């Protein structure tokens, strides 16, 4: 290793850590090269002192950015040390870390060096060395630089497991204000190309349980976000488009199997929460649209950590809205694994998620007429909507029901969170909750018992909304 590597790794790791995605899941591959494989479930290798996992070596190829996005640590006008990895240097480092089982693969992002195409060429060089010269079969997640040409994106997809294009902000106006050099069209066109290519390859898979989605969900618009391209996406969706937006990949049998597949682990995106005035309703609706239109694997949320000062941005003293981020992820899970629609989770009257209660409980309290649910008779969909009952418990309830009636004690053993669930279900016609059957009484029993903290958080929340 060269002497400069230590410093580069420090600076470029620092620059990459605000990308939240760290999953190494979705690709399943045995070692068909010389080193490495990919496990479908993903593997975490360590956890940093903030409790977040490290699975991939997450670095920037360079932080020498041509753009001046106001929220970003690496913006042109910021006074930070600039450096750039040599493609081979980074490939060597990845292999050395991988052999010691420190990491599951590489997450490669970059600042814009000169132009998007030039940046992606350098990133591709590094990934090519890994795949072709070192026979590396581990996981690779590559960040797509908005504005990249379709041909280069195709090449990137062939050496990567997962691609991601960052939304950055939940609406076009915010993007325009805070990252003026990035255009919504530049973000959506690679997203569309990735989805289209996977459709052509028949490798497109929806996120989580989104196969459960009911058909009426298919026509969700992009909400208040006013992001363009809705029409083009609709064409892709119903098959009336020309279908040629993805660059066709001719399969070449001589190539190694991992090169035949275009981004087998799909695509993800992320957006920053709390730097801009969008409501949770807008954010969740946008996520839903991304899942349905592009069959994204994940939409990540990143609580805004003030790294730059500016009239457009929250002050440097603003704490990151971690609780809000947490509730948004819970809502995201409801979309992906529980068959909820965005307009069920949030409404125009309640455009923000409740900080004290998880969104599933909030939904149940608004729809008490559908409860309590008898666990021995309810359908799979109805069971999934009981707070405290997850996919695994539903699966176990359904399996046991075929053999014997499910009792309250069984539920406990199956992993149902009875602390919440007992208010919303009956087992063999018996109700196990206590207290009055109305939303405010139930709410009082389910909400955490610490008024000071929730008051403090409500203030925080208000600050961020403003």
């Amino acid at each position, binding site marked *: *290793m060269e002497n400069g*590597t*230590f410093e580069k*790794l*420090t600076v470029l*790791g*620092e620059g990459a*850590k*605000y990308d939240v995605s760290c999953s190494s899941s979705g690709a399943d591959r*045995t*070692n068909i090269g*010389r*080193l*490495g*494989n990919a*496990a479908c*479930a993903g*593997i*975490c*290798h*360590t*956890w*940093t*002192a*903030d*409790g*977040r*996992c*490290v*699975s991939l*070596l*997450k670095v920037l190829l360079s932080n020498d950015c041509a753009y001046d996005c106001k929220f970003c640590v690496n913006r042109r006008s910021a006074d930070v040390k600039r450096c750039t990895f040599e493609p081979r240097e980074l490939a060597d*480092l990845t292999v*050395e*870390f991988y*052999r*010691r*089982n*420190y990491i*599951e693969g590489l997450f490669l992002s970059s600042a814009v060096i000169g132009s998007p195409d030039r940046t992606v060429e350098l990133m591709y060089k590094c990934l090519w060395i890994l795949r072709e010269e070192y026979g590396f079969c*581990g996981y690779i997640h590559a960040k797509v630089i908005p504005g990249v040409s379709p041909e280069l994106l195709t090449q990137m997809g062939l050496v990567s497991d997962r691609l991601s294009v960052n939304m950055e902000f939940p609406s076009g106006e915010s993007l325009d204000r805070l990252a003026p050099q990035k255009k919504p069209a530049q973000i959506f066109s690679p997203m569309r190309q990735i989805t289209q290519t996977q459709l052509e390859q028949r490798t497109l898979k929806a996120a989580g349980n989104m196969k459960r989605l009911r058909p009426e969900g298919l026509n969700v618009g992009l909400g208040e976000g006013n992001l363009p391209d809705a029409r083009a996406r609709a064409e892709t969706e119903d098959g009336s488009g020309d279908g040629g937006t993805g660059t066709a990949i001719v399969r070449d049998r001589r190539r190694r199997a991992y090169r035949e597949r275009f981004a087998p682990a799909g695509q993800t995106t992320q957006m920053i929460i709390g730097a801009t005035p969008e409501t949770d309703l807008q954010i969740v609706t946008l996520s839903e649209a991304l899942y349905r239109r592009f069959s994204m694997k994940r939409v990540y949320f990143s609580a805004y*950590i003030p790294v730059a000062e500016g009239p457009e941005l929250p002050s440097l003293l603003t*704490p*990151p809205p*971690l609780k809000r981020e947490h509730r948004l992820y819970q809502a995201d899970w409801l979309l992906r694994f529980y068959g909820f629609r965005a307009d069920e989770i949030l409404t125009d009257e309640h455009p923000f998620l409740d900080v004290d209660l998880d969104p599933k409980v909030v939904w149940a309290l608004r729809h008490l007429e559908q409860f309590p649910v008898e666990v021995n008779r309810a359908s799979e969909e109805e069971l999934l909507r009981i707070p405290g009952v997850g996919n695994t418990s539903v699966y*176990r309830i359904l*399996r*046991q029901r*075929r*053999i*014997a009636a*499910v*009792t309250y*004690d*069984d539920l406990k*053993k*199956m992993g149902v969170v009875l602390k919440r669930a007992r208010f919303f279900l009956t087992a063999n016609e018996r109700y196990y909750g206590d207290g009055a059957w109305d939303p405010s009484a139930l709410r009082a029993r389910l909400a955490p018992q610490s008024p000071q903290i929730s008051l403090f958080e409500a203030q925080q929340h208000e600050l961020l909304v403003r």
Partner: protein
Amino acid sequence: MNYLYDDTFEGFLTCVWHHWRTARAEGIFSDRGVYQLDLTRYAQSVETDQAKADIVADAIERKISRWDAARVYRVFCTNEPEKEMKLLRYIRLGFKEGPKIRLLHGHPDVLAVQKAEERFGAEVHRLCGLVRFSELADGILYGAIEPDNDVLAFLAPHFCDRFKSDPFVIHDKRRGKALFAHQRKWEIAAMGEDASVLFSEREADIRALWKQYFGVMETKERHNPKLQRQFLPVRYHKYLTELQG
């Protein structure tokens, strides 16, 4: 009647055979651990017999299922207290209920085995990420672990595929044995606690890079060591390169 066996899987299956054919077992204990003398029961050493073990293994496969036979082995490899009696009860119930036994999540005998197996599976998965290799002077990768359960054989398929071109050793220091593997072939053999290892020249540099990177990746605004420990219990810290001072 308490049975004492030699801590092997075959030995345990022989105990199961004797439970049926000779005398009911009230307790089955390994003779490697400390056996608490029980004045109310006779204790008898059971001699491991491959033929008897085969009969029981075969019966489990035929009368319950192949999947349950594998499950019995997985649970046998755990450190679950009184795992032998729990497994015996599971097998007895299995002979009665047949392959549907795995659906009876609510039954206490099934639940006990299922929970032990879950913990075992979780540790295998966790260690797939937590084994840390170091490069030795002759290019071999060496990693030490002290797992709760006897997981070596279950780590083998994952790592043998991943590092098929590199010879590597995973040393279970708690049990004094190690997994030796090269080019997808592997075996488990005894390896002493005090086996000394000589690292390659660049090993220290790579470790320094990794430690630096690990420190940088923490977002200070989100500092949350409690959450870290939840995912990464302290008992695993000992062999993690990034957490060594």
